């Protein structure tokens, strides 16, 4: 028999008290784990989205902005003196010293045209560049034509009716070449206009052929009629004009400042935004939230520690006579303290495991509610290890005072020898 047998047997005997301490520690640990898990998952999701967002730098036209306020109600900002970007600005980017570090320059013109009796948003792009900065875009292959379906039925074969999607930027670069009179349609606008691949579409009096449809992706592209930049400039009667230039860089973060400075110098009238810096700003906000969350968790954990300390201390008082017997049988003060600390250790270990399981489960349940179903909180071994370490630290802190109290018990007093 060892000291831990005594600790373990005592815990078994005092199940209610042990469960009380276990619950206190578990709740504290679960709160910390849930808050930490959620915040880490939110950070990871933000980083993932930022990395998925192909453009690193976005250049737009500069304009004056003014917000009008009426009796404390502020209306959206009004823009004035907009100085549009031009193809000369796109060319200017090619001349900056850091140009080799820029992988893709994707200029784009946005405007409104009419088609099928409705207003549609036209995006003039350089297709190959555009699809490189937006690698998530997929082309929806045309459904099987009726005659093929009929042939298949005549042969008694099962016809593959599934629509599959082509990765425009990677798998089939030839698909990203649009003719001057060809357009790609976002899924929503295609449905609105009631057109399909191969159909003809009249926009602003000009006739185009629908080259293909884009797979629905839930973003702006679903609403766009995409065509070559030059065709859009012609259609919208805005020659040489560009609304936005998106850049994808291969530069490390350290070189980004230099690139931004060169761009500012080359395009003095433009507004240049770094997506990374924007992300960092949001990250900072998230860090503040994290600090607040962790502070609240720390308070709950402190309360859990105090509950545990009080419960263990109560247990020591209950066992005064028993501790006196152990001391009379030759247990040193340090042996008695070790027994109490071992009990605290065992309970805190259990509290850590339970707290981790409960915390991650809670975070997994809460994640989808916070982030429209996409936030995933994983089971992580390193978080489990950290939780156990924290839990042990909390348990040991809670055990120190009762252990000292137990060790300092006067054995004669404990045995009431008088």
């Amino acid at each position, binding site marked *: 028999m060892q000291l831990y047998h005594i600790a373990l047997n005592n815990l078994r005997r005092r199940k209610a008290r042990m469960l009380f301490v276990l619950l206190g520690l578990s709740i504290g640990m679960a709160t910390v784990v849930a808050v930490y898990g959620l915040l880490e998952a939110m950070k990871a999701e933000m980083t993932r989205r930022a990395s998925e967002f192909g453009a690193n730098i976005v250049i737009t036209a500069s304009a004056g902005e003014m917000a009008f306020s009426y009796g404390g109600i502020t209306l959206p900002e009004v823009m004035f003196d907009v100085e549009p970007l031009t193809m000369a600005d796109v060319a200017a980017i090619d001349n900056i010293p850091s140009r080799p570090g820029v992988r893709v320059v994707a200029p784009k013109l946005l405007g409104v045209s009419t088609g099928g009796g409705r207003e549609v948003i036209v995006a003039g792009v350089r297709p190959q560049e555009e699809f490189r900065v937006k690698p998530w875009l997929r082309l929806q292959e045309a459904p099987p034509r009726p005659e093929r379906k009929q042939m298949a039925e005549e042969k008694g074969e099962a016809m593959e009716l599934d629509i599959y999607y082509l990765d425009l930027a990677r798998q089939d670069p030839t698909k990203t070449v649009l003719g001057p009179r060809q357009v790609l349609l976002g899924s929503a606008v295609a449905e609105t206009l009631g057109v399909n691949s191969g159909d003809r579409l009249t926009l602003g009096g000009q006739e185009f052929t629908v080259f293909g449809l884009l797979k629905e992706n839930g973003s702006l592209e679903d609403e766009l009629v995409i065509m070559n930049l030059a065709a859009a400039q012609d259609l919208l009667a805005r020659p040489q004009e560009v609304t936005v230039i998106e850049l994808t860089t291969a530069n490390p973060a350290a070189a980004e400042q230099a690139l931004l400075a060169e761009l500012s110098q080359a395009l003095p009238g433009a507004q240049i935004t770094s997506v990374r810096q924007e992300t960092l700003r949001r990250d900072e906000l998230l860090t503040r939230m994290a600090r607040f969350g962790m502070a609240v968790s720390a308070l709950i954990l402190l309360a859990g520690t105090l509950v545990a300390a009080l419960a263990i201390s109560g247990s020591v008082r209950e066992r005064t006579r028993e501790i006196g017997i152990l001391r009379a049988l030759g247990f040193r003060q340090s042996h008695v303290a070790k027994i109490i600390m071992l009990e605290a250790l065992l309970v805190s270990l259990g509290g850590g495991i339970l707290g981790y399981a409960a915390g991650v489960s809670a975070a997994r349940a809460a994640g989808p509610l916070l982030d429209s179903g996409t936030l995933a909180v994983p089971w992580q071994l390193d978080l489990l290890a950290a939780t156990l370490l924290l839990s042990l630290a909390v348990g040991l802190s809670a055990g120190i005072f009762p252990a000292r109290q137990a060790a300092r018990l006067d054995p004669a007093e404990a045995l009431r*020898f008088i």
Partner: protein
Amino acid sequence: MADVMIALRELKKTYGSADGEVHALRGVTLDINKGEAVAVMGHSGSGKSTLLSIIGALNPPSSGSIEIDGIDIYALSQERRADFRREYLGFVFQQFQLIPYLTALENVLLPLVTTSLPGRRKRELAEQVLCRVGLAGKMNRLPNALSGGEQERVAIARAIVNAPPVLLADEPTGNLDTKTGEEIMALFRELNQDGLTVLMVTHNPDNTRHMGRTIVLKDGLLCQDKAEILSLAAGRGQRRGG
């Protein structure tokens, strides 16, 4: 001249309380030889248990000296005194004082827990002493599954498992019926015959028959008066007769 195991010189113990001081021991001088069996008698409050706790290295005296096997036990540090208790003393407490959530075997193992003996050896020793006190078949029972006499036997086994030279017992038969009490006293006598020095606090004059010497405490002092001893015995006899 026989070797002295326990030597007390002018031992005094005073407890302070709100009502004033209580003089539990007022100068006890006593030698107990190795292998001797001594019964300590006296009325309640006479200082018996205080004397036992001081000899048990649990309760420092207010003044005077005490040596066990030549060791001034209160000159030792707290932790060394704990080691001393483990190596030199076996305790049999009033009302057995077994740990309720440990089996008989585990209770007996307690004094060995903090020793450096191998686990198997500890278990062998505990099983041997339990066999010796007649509990071979009940080693794995919890105290509440044992009779009073059996619990007392476990307490005795626990007191002797580390082979101490001195056995201290406080009212070991106080909670037992006469027959079981006699059996336990026979066990004490047997242990004494094996060379163990036994010091037993008791209210029961019948127990003194099993002990080689009886000393009586009165108001914190040793009473040498034979008549006093006889009066204690007679008082006990009257109560039993009544």
